């Protein structure tokens, strides 16, 4: 129990952006995880992916940590930002850009604009 919690805390302490997801950034194993990883990949954000399917304790642990029932979960500088639906909305509204600006996370603004153009 504490072991999963320690792993989670360590991942959040050591990385500005962390995505807890099903599968890996190269090979997502769920459409929702794939969508969020795809946005981050496309926007060229540096992030750590944690595959919850690799460890059941982490899979449950991260839900307890955030009091949030679903995967994926995106964290920026230790703060839980949201799941797939929230990240999708924030990407399309430009709020994700604002968040990255505020938290000083590097990303490709042009790519973010392209996502919005494609979904306009």
């Amino acid at each position, binding site marked *: 129990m504490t072991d999963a919690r320690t792993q989670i805390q360590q991942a959040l302490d050591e990385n500005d952006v962390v995505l807890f997801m099903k599968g890996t950034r190269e090979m997502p194993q769920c459409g929702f995880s794939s969508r969020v990883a795809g946005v981050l990949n496309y926007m060229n954000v540096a992030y750590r992916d944690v595959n919850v399917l690799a460890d059941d304790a982490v899979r449950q642990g991260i839900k307890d940590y955030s*009091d*949030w*029932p679903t995967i994926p979960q995106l964290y920026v500088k230790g703060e839980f*930002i*949201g*799941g797939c*639906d*929230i990240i999708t*909305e*924030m990407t399309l509204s430009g709020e994700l850009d604002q968040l990255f600006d505020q938290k000083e996370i590097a990303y490709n603004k042009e790519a973010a604009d392209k996502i919005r153009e494609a979904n306009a």
Partner: protein
Amino acid sequence: MAIEAHEIEALIRASFPDAQITITDLAGDGKHYAAEVVDESFRGKNRVQQQRAVYAALNGKMDGPDGQLHALALTTKIPD
């Protein structure tokens, strides 16, 4: 194990009696749904807080690998 759209609506309705609730079955398998909940009580809350309140209303139906509800694409809004 599956769940019916009206059961999801009833669960949400119990916590948000005046909300406008729209449930859509995404895959036709009784496991993947989209829900839109429009409610005045969301005012002043961020999206995480709004959606957490809806998840809480689902009473653990999404919990665990054997949860009845595999996926719920959730949208929360404040009435215009």
